[in-house]
């Protein structure tokens, strides 16, 4: 949306942009900060914990792929359009991009986010790292995930409504 569009619609999305070199130690701080930021940007929406979780998982995926180069995080919140969007971008190889694109395409072919998440729990050995983060973001944060490539960088976007429907209640005994 251009600035002119903003004036026309009266919608001024709140944006946060962070560019960082990727030591792991910053990811916890980033998660805490984005949780606070989101709570301030959209009070009463009860979305901050989900956004923070998504930021953590997406950054955690991006850091190893970036091979020491910078990772960029963009968080956008629009109450007017009822949307929250997280974009994480980093430089990556063609092979890494193709693999990521295939994984996201495969994930999105399953319309039931929980079914895919549980499937990934079965498929990914518990003693290896990785494999669950995107499915977790899709189900737990209730965000749709897409990926594209621009100028040698991969951009992963997680986007969804600011007023997300509440997931089913838990607390009962299963079985």
């Amino acid at each position, binding site marked *: 949306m251009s600035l002119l569009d903003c004036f026309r619609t009266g919608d001024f999305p709140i944006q946060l942009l962070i560019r960082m070199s990727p030591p*792991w130690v910053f*990811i*916890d701080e980033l*998660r805490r900060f984005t949780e606070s930021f989101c709570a301030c940007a959209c009070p009463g929406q*009860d979305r901050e*914990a*989900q956004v*923070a*979780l998504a930021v*953590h*998982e997406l950054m*955690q995926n991006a850091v*190893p792929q970036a091979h020491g180069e910078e990772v960029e995080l963009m968080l956008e919140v629009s109450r007017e359009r009822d949307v929250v969007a997280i974009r994480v971008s980093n430089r990556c190889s063609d092979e890494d991009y193709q693999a990521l694109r295939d994984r996201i395409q495969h994930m999105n072919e399953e319309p039931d986010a*929980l079914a895919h*998440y*549980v499937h990934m*729990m*079965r498929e*990914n050995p*518990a*003693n*290896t*790292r*990785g*494999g*669950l*983060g995107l499915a*977790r973001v899709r*189900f*737990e944060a209730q965000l749709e995930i897409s990926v594209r490539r621009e100028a040698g960088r991969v951009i992963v976007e997680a986007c969804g409504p600011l007023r997300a429907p509440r*997931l*089913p209640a*838990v*607390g*009962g*005994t*299963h*079985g």
Partner: protein
Amino acid sequence: MANPSFAGRMPALQVAEEKYSAHLGFDPQGIRVHFRGTISTPNPAVVLNPFVDAVHAHVLEAAAKEVRVDLTQLEFCNSSGFKSFIHWIERIQKAPEPKQYRLRFVSTKERKWQRTSLLALSCYGVNIVTMEGTI
């Protein structure tokens, strides 16, 4: 509930990393495993899976039917750390049926991620995962 006499023989099982820790305890309700801090390292399973295996072995020895997994002091757990709970469920599923036990997760509404994570985990560990707490 575990055999109370087992409490006296329970070894000090624990792991302590820079940002998180876990330890096996025993209270009037039975065996309780506490997780604390932030599990966010790249591959926490290297530390947590052996801990889970050791706890699992002691639960089998105690013939307990339920273990409380206390997450109330756990600020966050990344998806790699989450796999250690999946690993635990798989260990229970592979045990002979009479020896299988339940994992009763104790959570807090202060950590909103726990609600959705436990919802997903309960769908994976049907008949094994139960929950208590104010979520």
